[in-house]
């Protein structure tokens, strides 16, 4: 286990997952077992209230035209990474309230706004920018625009953070002071 992993208080991070490199996990985020997060190209910052489910992979890839110091991969609040999804990104910014459905794949050079849904088993490989509230679904990768953001999973988060400690060994939060860098997004309180 790398000592670079910063877990903020309130985060639920299972021990049985691979975290490599400089990773910051925000409060309220739930990381299930068997998750792989690799920050080889630069730091990864995961904001508050994200759900990262089993077998999902988030990689900050090394690229040739690396900036110095390397840019972080910032993942906004309220994102849901469902079972087996994969996100490969050299750098960049992922907005809020996105849903990466089961076994979806987001390749390099894909910029994702807020409120997007990458449907189950959808593969995004070409360089593109997803506008806010874009929904991609089906084997033909149909695209539509939703009117509003996806509803947040606060109830599910509450439940998971209560139940997870009963069945899994957890990593303890190691940062006791809230970092100003992860608090910049304006988020509603966890209780509705």
């Amino acid at each position, binding site marked *: 286990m790398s000592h670079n992993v910063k877990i903020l208080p309130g985060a639920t991070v299972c021990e049985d997952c691979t975290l490599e490199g400089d990773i910051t996990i925000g409060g309220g985020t739930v990381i299930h077992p068997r998750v792989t997060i690799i920050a080889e190209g630069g730091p990864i910052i995961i904001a508050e209230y994200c759900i990262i489910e089993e077998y999902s992979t988030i990689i900050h890839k090394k690229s040739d035209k690396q900036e110095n110091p390397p840019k972080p991969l910032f993942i906004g609040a309220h994102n849901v990474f469902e079972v087996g999804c994969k996100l490969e990104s050299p750098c960049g910014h992922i907005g809020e309230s996105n849903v990466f459905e089961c076994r979806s794949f987001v390749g390099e050079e894909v910029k994702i706004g807020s409120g997007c849904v990458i449907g189950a088993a959808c593969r995004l490989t070409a360089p593109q920018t997803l506008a806010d509230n874009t929904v991609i*679904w*089906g084997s033909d990768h149909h695209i*539509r625009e*939703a*009117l*509003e953001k996806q509803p947040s999973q606060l109830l599910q988060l509450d439940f998971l953070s209560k139940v997870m400690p009963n069945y899994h060994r957890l990593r303890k939060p190691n940062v006791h002071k809230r970092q100003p860098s992860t608090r910049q997004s304006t988020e509603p309180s966890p209780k509705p």
Partner: protein
Amino acid sequence: MAYLTQPDYVKYICSCGQLKPITSLYFCRHCLKIRCGFCICHEVDSHYCANCLENMPSSEARLKKNRCSSCFDCPSCFHTLSTRATTQQRQVLQDPAAGGDTKVESKQPKKMYYLSCFNCRWTSRDVGIPDQPVASGGWPERTNPHAARVNQLIDYYKAIAQQEKQEKIERERKKFNIRGKYITLTDKTGLTGAMARNIAGLPSSESSSSAIANFVPSVATAEVDELPEDIFTKEVNLNQITSMPQRLASPDWQPVSVSRLHPLAKLLSVKRSQRCRACDHNLTKPEYNPGSIKFKIELLAYYHVPEVKIISHEPVKPGEKTALFLKLTNPTGHEMQLRLLQPEDIPPPEEKEEPKSIDKSLERSLVLEKDTTAFKAIERQPNISATSRVTSPGVTLTLAQRDDAAEYDDDAQHDTNDIILWRKSNKLGVRLELDTSAEAVGGSPARALVALQYSYRNTVPPAPSAAACRDHTLYTTLLLDLGTVSSN
């Protein structure tokens, strides 16, 4: 499972000449013939909604245009919509006079429901349908803009049909009048035509004629609306425009813009029973309950005809004899005698002319009125071009009856010989020789023909008049797909 996921390697020839795998064939126990979906009558038993499993009589289904009133499909991706609940603080207008009372009320959360698609995340809020206070029903219905015209057309054609019927009856009556042999009801009782019609429950001729007289036919016009000015200059946002399937799914509105997509009422499904055209006996009859997937009558070929599967085979070479391994299964509860024949050896089916009983001929005279062409099964010679033949071993194989308990004892009987490879309860592995013609071209599909002769015990209780003949010898022809002819 193999029948679902793999191509059909073994096909049976139906009595109508179609080639089908055994899983899509039926077996009529009364005609003792294999039937397929093309040569049987399909009848609608009941209408039901596949989502809420609600049963509906056919008259009600017709009234609701064969759609369920409580279930909806997504207009965007055609997946079934689900009802989602949200708790909403009741929005109460700030009324200074009411004071404290409004505060109390606004604290009560109210459940509101909206429709949402789990596949493409479409919601009824996307098109501005207000949330509903009840979980099911109550969704606003849109009326077809052309509803009045459609109803007018339906009335018109009904009136025409009525008129033609009347004219036909009139003509019939005239025919009889000319003969002068029969006294019609009106002559005998002194009823007038209008009164008789009234008694018979037919609408009076005046109303139908008025519907015809008042009908205004459509007029074609060359004038159409001008295209908007910016049609060629405005940038197109494909996310805002509906696709062809989305438009065709709601033919009454055919929305152009995504914001006009409205939930589609779910189409009803039917349970159907199938009937043999030759003897009018049911081949399948489902249980009435929509939740049940069982059948009351289920005469599938899979339960009556010996099943043949290819275990393996040597590469098929032109002009050579190669080995072929087959597995034969007896699905019936009786011992089966089985012989492999050449298709030419099958005796032609005897044309049995049934002795015409009185009620049969009576029935036929009644049926005469109907259009019988719809009920006649067309039989044709199957198109079989097989390059290979399975050499008949000339022995009779005996297959034991199906025994579900035999699955658990695992000692295979070893009465093997040149032909029989192994034997296990009602299954038999056979080694056969395949004779390929020398003209077969390498790379062309290798198909082998084989005929089966099998004994079949009919368990239908015989009709009192018919001879109690229970054991039959039946024939069927199979086409085996053995890949391609190898070229060397």
